[in-house]
C-alpha cells in the first residue's frame, strides 16, 4: 500500500510539473501579449518596451519559466485586473462559499441517489425503476444554468418560497469561523442565521446536484444489478444468511466500488456546475469569480485561478484513487 502511494505521488509530482509547463505555454500564447494587457491602448512603443523589460519578457524563455515557477511556489499568482487585489486572496475569500455549495450538492446527490438506485435495482421493472431510470436519463440532459435559472424564476421570483440570490439575506449580521454559513451559525448559536443560510442554499444546491444525482442513481442501479448476479451473492444465499447481511456485506460492499469511482470523476464536473449555478444565484463563490473573470477577460486572474483549481483537482483525484485502495483489497496488490 505504501509503495503504491509513493509511486503515485512521484508520478503526480512529475505530472504537476508538466502542468505548470503547459500553463506557462498557455499564458505565453494568449493573444495580445502580457504587456499589452496591462497597458492602456494608447501606450507608446517605448512604454511597451520598458514594461517588457520590467516584466522580464526579454529574457530567455528558460529564465521566464523559472520566474514563473518560483512565483507559483510562493503562491504569487499576480493580481486581478479588475479589482487589483492578489488572485490568491480573491480565491481564498470565495472558496468557503463554493465548498459549502458543493458539499451540500454532493450530499444531496449521494443521499438520494444511492438509495434510489438501490431500490430501482431491487424492484427492477417496477414503476419506481422506470421512474428512476427516466428521470436520471433526463437529468443529465438538462443544462445546469437553465435549470438553475428556471428554479429561480419559479420558486424564488414567482412563488416567493425561497430567496433569489446570495448566501444570506442582505443586511444579516453573521459571525465567521469556517466560512460555511450554516456551520458557523450552528457553532455560534446563531440559529436564525444558520436557517437563513440553509434557505439560500436550497435552490442552488438542488440545481447543482441534478447531474451528480442522475449519474449516481444510474451507476448505483447498474452496479447493484450486476453484483446481485454474481456467484458470491449466490454463495451467501446458499449459506442461508439473513437478507440484511447479504445486502450489506455482500451486495453493497461490492456495488459501491464503481460508485466511489464515479463520485471521484464527478468532482470535476461539480466545479463546472458550480461556476454556472453561482452566477445565476450571485452566490459569491469561486464560480462567480470565474464567471466575472471570463466575461471581463481578466487573464491574470483566470490563469492563477486555473492553475490553483487544476492542482486542487489533481490532488483530489489522487486522494480518491488512494481511497479506492482502501475499499478494494485487490487493488493494493496490483501497482
Amino acid at each position: 500500500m505504501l509503495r503504491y502511494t509513493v509511486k503515485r505521488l512521484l508520478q503526480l509530482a512529475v505530472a504537476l510539473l508538466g502542468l505548470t509547463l503547459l500553463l506557462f505555454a498557455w499564458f505565453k500564447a494568449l493573444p495580445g501579449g502580457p504587456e499589452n494587457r496591462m497597458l492602456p491602448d494608447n501606450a507608446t512603443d517605448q512604454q511597451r518596451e520598458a514594461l517588457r523589460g520590467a516584466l522580464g519578457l526579454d529574457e530567455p524563455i528558460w529564465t521566464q519559466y523559472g520566474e514563473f515557477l518560483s512565483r507559483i511556489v510562493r503562491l504569487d499568482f499576480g493580481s486581478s485586473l479588475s479589482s487589483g487585489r492578489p488572485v490568491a486572496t480573491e480565491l481564498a475569500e470565495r472558496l468557503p462559499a463554493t465548498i459549502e455549495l458543493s458539499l451540500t450538492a454532493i450530499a444531496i446527490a449521494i443521499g438520494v441517489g444511492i438509495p434510489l438506485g438501490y431500490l430501482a435495482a431491487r424492484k427492477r421493472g417496477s414503476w419506481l425503476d422506470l421512474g428512476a431510470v427516466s428521470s436520471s436519463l433526463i437529468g443529465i440532459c438538462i443544462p445546469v444554468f437553465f435549470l438553475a435559472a428556471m428554479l429561480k424564476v419559479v420558486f424564488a421570483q414567482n412563488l416567493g418560497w425561497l430567496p433569489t440570490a446570495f448566501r444570506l439575506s442582505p443586511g444579516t449580521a453573521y459571525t465567521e469561523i469556517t466560512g460555511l454559513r450554516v456551520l458557523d451559525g450552528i457553532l455560534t448559536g446563531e440559529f436564525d442565521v444558520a436557517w437563513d443560510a440553509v434557505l439560500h442554499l436550497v435552490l442552488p444546491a438542488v440545481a447543482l446536484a441534478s447531474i451528480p444525482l442522475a449519474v449516481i442513481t444510474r451507476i448505483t442501479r447498474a452496479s447493484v444489478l450486476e453484483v446481485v448476479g454474481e456467484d458470491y451473492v449466490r454463495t451467501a444465499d446458499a449459506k442461508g444468511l439473513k437478507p440484511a447481511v447479504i445486502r450489506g456485506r455482500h451486495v453493497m460492499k461490492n456495488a459501491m466500488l464503481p460508485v466511489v469511482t464515479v463520485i471521484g470523476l464527478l468532482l470535476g464536473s461539480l466545479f463546472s456546475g458550480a461556476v454556472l449555478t453561482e452566477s445565476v444565484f450571485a452566490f459569491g463563490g469561486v464560480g462567480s469569480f470565474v464567471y466575472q473573470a471570463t466575461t471581463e477577460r481578466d487573464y491574470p486572474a483566470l490563469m492563477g485561478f486555473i492553475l490553483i483549481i487544476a492542482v486542487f483537482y489533481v490532488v483530489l483525484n489522487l486522494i480518491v484513487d488512494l481511497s479506492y485502495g482502501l475499499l478494494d483489497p485487490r487493488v493494493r496488490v496490483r501497482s
Partner: protein
Amino acid sequence: MTLAKIERLDRLVEAGAQARHAESGSLWRQSLRRMKRSPMAISGAIIVALFLLIAILGPWIAPYPATAQTWGDEVFLNRNVFPGPRAENWFGLDHLGRDMFSRMIVGARQTMLVGVVATLIGFAAGAVIGGVAAAAGTFGGRWGERIEAVIMRTVDIALAIPMLLLALSVAALLGPSLSTVMIAVGVAQIPIFARLLRGSMLAQAHSDYVLAAVSLGVRKRRIVLSHIFPNSLGPVIVQATLVLATAIIEAAALSYLGLGNPDPGTPEWGTMLADAQRFLSGAPQLAIYPAVGIIVTALGFTLLGEAMRESLDPRLRRQS
C-alpha cells in the same frame, strides 16, 4: 427405420430445437437485432433521426428566414411585450422580432454541427493519443512502456481538471466565436476518448486471439491496425454517442459564459438559450423552446448510446 419415420424424427427434432433458438451472427449483427427490440433504442433512434432530418432540411422547411427581424416593431423589451404563439408565428417572436419557429428549425443545423464537430475532435485526437499509448505500451518494449506511462499520466491530469476550465483555457486563446466553443468542448473531450480507447485496446491486446496472431508471426502493425483497433471501437462508439449529447449542452454553457458567438444572427440552440436567460422572468418561452430542443435531442442521443452499450455487452449475450 423407414423414410417416413426418419422424416417424423426430423420434425420432432425441429420441435425440440424451437425451444432452444440460438442467436448467431457477428457481434454487430447480434447487437442490432437486440436493439430492434429495445424501446429505449427505438425511441432514441426516432428522436435522433427526427433531429438530423430537421437539421439537414432546415432552411428549406422553415416558414421564414431565421435572421429577418420582420416583426421588430411588435416587440417591446421594456414593457415585456413579446407576441406569443399565433397563426403567423407558431412559436411567437423573439426579442428582436424574429420568428421563433424558423429560428428553432434553422438552429438545429448549427446545433448539430457543434455537437458533431466537438465530438469528432475529441474522438479523433483521443483515439490517436490513446491508440499510440496502447500500441507503445504493448509492443514498444521498455521505452514503449515509459511513453505510454507519460501519455496516460498527462491524460489523467487532463481528466482531473474540470471540463469548464479546459474549455475556458482554450476559449481564452481563441477569442469568442462559435468555432471556439466547438473546439473548446472538443478538446475537453479528448482525455475521455484517449483513456477509453487505450483501455479498450489493452483489453483486446491481452485477449487470446491476439496471442494467437502474434504466435503465428503476424506483424505487430497489422495486428494493431486490423485486429485490435476495430475490435476496440465498440465502447468508443457508444461513448461518442453519449458525448454528442453532452457536447451540445456544454457548448450552451460556454455561450452562457460569453465565450460563444457574440453576434446572435445565425441561430444555434445553445446560443439562443444563453441569450434568452435575461428574459426568463418576462418571456420564458424564448428560453424554453431551445432548452426543450436541446434536452430532447440530448436525450435521444443518450438513449441511443445507452441502448448500444447494453446491446454490445458480451455478458448479456444469451447462451444457447
